[in-house]
């Protein structure tokens, strides 16, 4: 009898839906849809606005590196060097920042005394609060000057590696400088993400490793890093996303040229975001539309990076 009573009450409640529930559900659903709408809106804007110049373009947009778009007649421009520079700068930043971020996170979670860990965690978070234009100023006003002699040293001893081949830029305003500044900028976000996943590693997994006679480092390799891997990748990808789109610091530090160059110590290369920022104020003719087309490519790259990241994170889900 009781069960019947309960189920009827349940059904009655389901029919008489509460106003609060309805409003909340609708609000949550609306927010979810809004995200999609914004994303679609941005994509539509980029595609529509760039169509104009892409139709008039004389060069192959994806393979050409020239940028002659500020005209009403026969513009010819391409995004190849820009896309290359964007990915290169972000890749340098990622390669430099990820190991350091993992190291900081491991130190904070497993090695540092509690007080120092708290202070250090706070300082890392503070790094994230610095505006990118300030990083740009720091980069051009101080860092590149310090780096120039180091670059000369790199060229002397490691010049045989093509990446470090000369002639070295005497100003230090190179791809590597931009990558280093970007690395500092994305360090906090990667550190924060990895620190959070390390904190989530269940005590029981850590004890399992320790009870087998693992040292602290072995415990980290056995239980912490595998468990945290999706989080580390996620953090790195978030950082990569930021590095790809970062504008001000790169625009200020890099002395740009539209070439595809692997020589990190020479001036040259440019990123999409910095190019848009620098070119936009003086864009005429098809210029604006062409810059929007470049923006579309950046949008696509970022989207692709995020999708790859999701895929990597979800791949061995069974084991997580």
């Amino acid at each position: 009898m009781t069960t019947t009573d309960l189920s009827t009450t349940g059904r009655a409640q389901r029919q008489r839906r509460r106003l609060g529930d309805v409003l909340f559900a609708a609000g949550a659903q609306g927010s979810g849809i809004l995200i999609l709408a914004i994303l679609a809106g941005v994509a539509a804007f980029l595609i529509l606005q760039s169509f104009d110049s892409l139709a008039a373009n004389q060069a192959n947009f994806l393979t050409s590196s020239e940028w002659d778009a500020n005209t009403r007649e026969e513009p010819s421009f391409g995004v190849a060097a820009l896309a290359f520079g964007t990915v290169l700068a972000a890749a340098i930043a990622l390669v430099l920042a990820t190991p350091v971020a993992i190291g900081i996170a491991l130190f904070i979670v497993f090695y540092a005394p509690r007080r120092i860990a708290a202070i250090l965690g706070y300082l890392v978070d503070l790094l994230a609060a610095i505006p990118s234009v300030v990083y740009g100023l720091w980069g051009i006003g101080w860092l590149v000057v310090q780096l120039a002699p180091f670059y000369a040293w790199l060229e002397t001893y490691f010049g045989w590696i093509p990446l470090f081949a000369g002639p070295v830029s005497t100003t230090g305003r190179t791809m590597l400088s931009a990558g280093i500044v970007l690395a500092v900028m994305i360090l906090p976000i990667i550190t924060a993400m990895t620190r959070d996943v390390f904190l989530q590693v269940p005590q029981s997994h850590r004890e399992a490793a320790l009870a087998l006679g693992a040292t602290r480092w072995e415990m980290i390799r056995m239980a912490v890093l595998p468990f945290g891997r999706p989080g580390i990748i996620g953090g790195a990808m978030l950082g990569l996303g930021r590095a790809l789109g970062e504008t001000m610091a790169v625009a200020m530090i890099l002395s740009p040229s539209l070439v595809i160059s692997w020589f990190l110590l020479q001036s040259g290369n440019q990123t999409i975001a910095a190019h848009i920022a620098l070119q936009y104020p003086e864009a005429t003719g098809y210029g604006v539309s062409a810059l929007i087309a470049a923006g579309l490519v950046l949008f696509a790259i970022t989207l692709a990076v995020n999708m790859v990241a999701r895929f990597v994170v979800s791949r061995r889900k069974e084991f997580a």
Partner: protein
Amino acid sequence: MAKRIDVSGLHVYYGDFLAVEDVSMTIEPRSVTAFIGSSGCGKSTFLRTLNRMHEVTPGARVEGKVLLDDQDIYAPDVDPVEVRREVGMVFQRPNPFPTMSIYDNVIAGYKLNNRRLRKSEADEIVERSLRGANLWEEVKDRLDRPGASLSGGQQQRLCIARAIAVEPSVLLMDEPCSALDPISTLAIEDLISQLKENYTIVIVTHNMQQAARVSDVTAFFNLAGTGKPGKLIEIGETNKIFTKPEKKETENYITGRFG
């Protein structure tokens, strides 16, 4: 090889708080010793001092002596890592490494000592350990599956296989069956009876029938009072503890009058 454990005058502290007071006992090799007592009486804490796992908790420390055969595990030159390779542990909740396959779980501890391991050698150790844990027949066709894909009881036997793969001399079990159903519990208890041929086994249990079924010696722990440290009240042959205990407190506990 199974080793004897000799504990004398052991106090366990968390910071300034004395958690377990003055425990002395001898645990014979190739026997099963059960620790019983109500929750919070310090039996798990004491168990963890036998392989220095308590040091994982910040502020935890001990005074007193624990001898493994003739080696003092708290001597200044002894590395806790070495102690834990000698004294294995199985926990309350099965905790196979979730990112590892069954095979990798078993070999994980062994690999720590032996970096360069031939495949055939590893296969042999995995099979021997899984057989030793009565799990081989159930998993031999799916060694590459995640450890977490097994049932709770199988996971716990996987953890036992992982612990015995490093060939410890002592196996500590902290309520190994409390998260398992009766059938799985039975499987673990059978396993314990087999394992004592080769190991010194110490098991903490809340289940007095279990203590009576599997152990040769039973130790009863109790709190001296609320906020007071836990103490070893009585230790003796399981038969005797459950039929003719010497202390009134023990009798009250095993007859269910409190706790």
